[in-house]
């Protein structure tokens, strides 16, 4: 399948290093002037796609972002990392995961990729749903929380991180992968590649043009700050500590 396309999701999120602040009116978190970046898990997804391409197992890597027009910046970064072209699906409001999955399903029909590789979750809403939803909508195989991907022809052997250890499944393509932290370490962008990325194409499509009208399903009532952590107390001896740990069921 050396002519295979791989589609990768690239979500624009508040940068990992930013201390998120909840707005006092409960309407969300402060985003004005806040540094935005590619969702870290999506970077891992992109890195995996690029490695597959570099290994001759795919022909083209398409980076897709769904969101505001500023997500161009994240697509540019994806192109600088090595994606061949970008698709920006613009939406009037922040779409919820089901809508994103539907948008990807529409793009899937258009582009016919062999693999869709997505981050296991976005670090903003932490929902962790789009890959599984997309696989469900397309009725194709899914392999979530991938920590190793071995692609051989029409199938892939995927090692998945699960609570109790590791699971290996074999999936037939086309399929949807969601990637975990330990799959790879995304490359650093080289300066010359930032310049080259300028010349790569980004296609902009409105979600409606893909037939996705409804973007939200849950009503977000409010966003609030979690209660601050309260300190406990000191114990006087090791015996007392063990006693407390026993009471709490830890030993």
């Amino acid at each position, binding site marked *: 399948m050396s002519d295979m396309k791989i589609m990768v999701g690239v979500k624009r999120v508040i940068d990992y290093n930013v201390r*998120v602040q*909840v707005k006092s009116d409960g309407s969300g978190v402060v985003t004005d002037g806040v540094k935005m970046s590619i969702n870290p898990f999506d970077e891992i997804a992109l890195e995996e796609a690029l490695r597959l391409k570099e290994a001759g197992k795919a022909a083209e890597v398409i980076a897709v972002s769904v969101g505001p027009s500023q997500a161009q910046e994240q697509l540019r970064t994806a192109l600088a990392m090595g994606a061949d072209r970008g698709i920006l699906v613009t939406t009037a409001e922040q779409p919820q*995961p*089901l809508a994103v999955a539907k948008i990807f399903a529409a793009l899937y029909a258009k582009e016919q990729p062999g693999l869709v590789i997505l981050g296991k979750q976005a*670090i*903003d*809403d*932490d*929902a*962790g*749903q*789009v*890959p*599984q*939803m997309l*696989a*469900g*909508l397309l009725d194709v*195989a*899914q*392999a*979530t*929380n991938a920590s190793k991907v071995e692609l051989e022809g029409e199938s892939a052997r995927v090692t*998945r*991180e*699960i*609570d*109790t*250890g*590791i*699971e*290996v*499944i*074999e*999936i*037939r393509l086309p399929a949807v992968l969601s990637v975990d*932290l330990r799959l790879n370490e995304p490359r650093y962008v080289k300066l010359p590649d930032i310049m080259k990325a300028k010349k790569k194409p980004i296609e902009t499509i409105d979600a409606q043009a893909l037939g996705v009208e409804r973007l939200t*399903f*849950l*009503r977000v*009532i*409010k*966003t*609030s*700050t*979690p209660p601050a*952590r309260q*300190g*406990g*107390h*000191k114990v006087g001896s*090791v*015996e007392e*500590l*063990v006693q*407390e*740990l026993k009471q*709490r069921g*830890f*030993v």
Partner: protein
Amino acid sequence: MARVLVFGELGSKGLNSGVAKAVRCAMDLQPAALDVLCLVADESQEGIKQAARLQGVTKVLVRIHDAFAEPLAAVMGNALVEMAGDYTHILAANTTVGRDILPRVAARLGVQQISDIMRVESERVFDRPTYAGNAITTVEAPEGMVVVATVRTASYRAVPEEGDAVVEAQPFNVSPPSHTRFVERREAKGERPDLQTARKVVSGGRAVGSSENFQIIANLADRLGAAVGASRAAVDAGYAPNELQVGQTGKIIAPDLYVAIGISGAIQHLAGIKDAGTIVAINKDGEAPIFEIADLGLEGDLFKVIPELEKLLP
């Protein structure tokens, strides 16, 4: 009135511990019916009886098919979709299995899933964490649609095993997909748990003093069945490898128990553990900032405290 179906996740050790917590969450919906669905290849599964003992459970529905031997999302998801018709809510614990299956179910049902419920406000209004727990979002599910949701297990205590629900077992007809095949599962046995997902973590700081001494931390972790972590200072000093670093620039973790040994509690470190259940601090310096947030603090020299602790542990 709510009718709730809880996914009865089974594993090699029987019923997954998250199920009893998801049931607790389901009970907050004050349901008219609270059924647990166990999808099995073999109805002698020990976990089924355990599910029937969970307080508050109305019925345990056991559905049997060879394809249920492994929790493949495509297979189990399809079964859940078929079972959904009778229910207003479908819940699963936010385990890797639950998180794998449920969104697929939601998409097939055409509803938006709610991830990681941490509080039930009403039948349709829920709190869930966002931004790595730095914000809480309250969402409302639309009327007339089934609610599909995962439950943040760290937010709920397990219901006691004091019930005696009806078990209703029957074969189930499902066509296993040809696109996915289970190969193997390697469960960590005897090895130390992974730091990111471990329920218990023991971490050492600069006060440990050397990489040789760090073995003391590892030994205690093994006694507790815990993962090993380290503070930035300890990693920088070369006492522990990079991947063990807990904190802002290292791993952000949320174990049920976090034991910080010889860690002063720089804010960068605290940022990595604020979602931990119980924080225990052992430090020679009574003024160390770690004590301000620790649930249990013990002032003392780690080289004296740890041997004593190991002696007293069961």
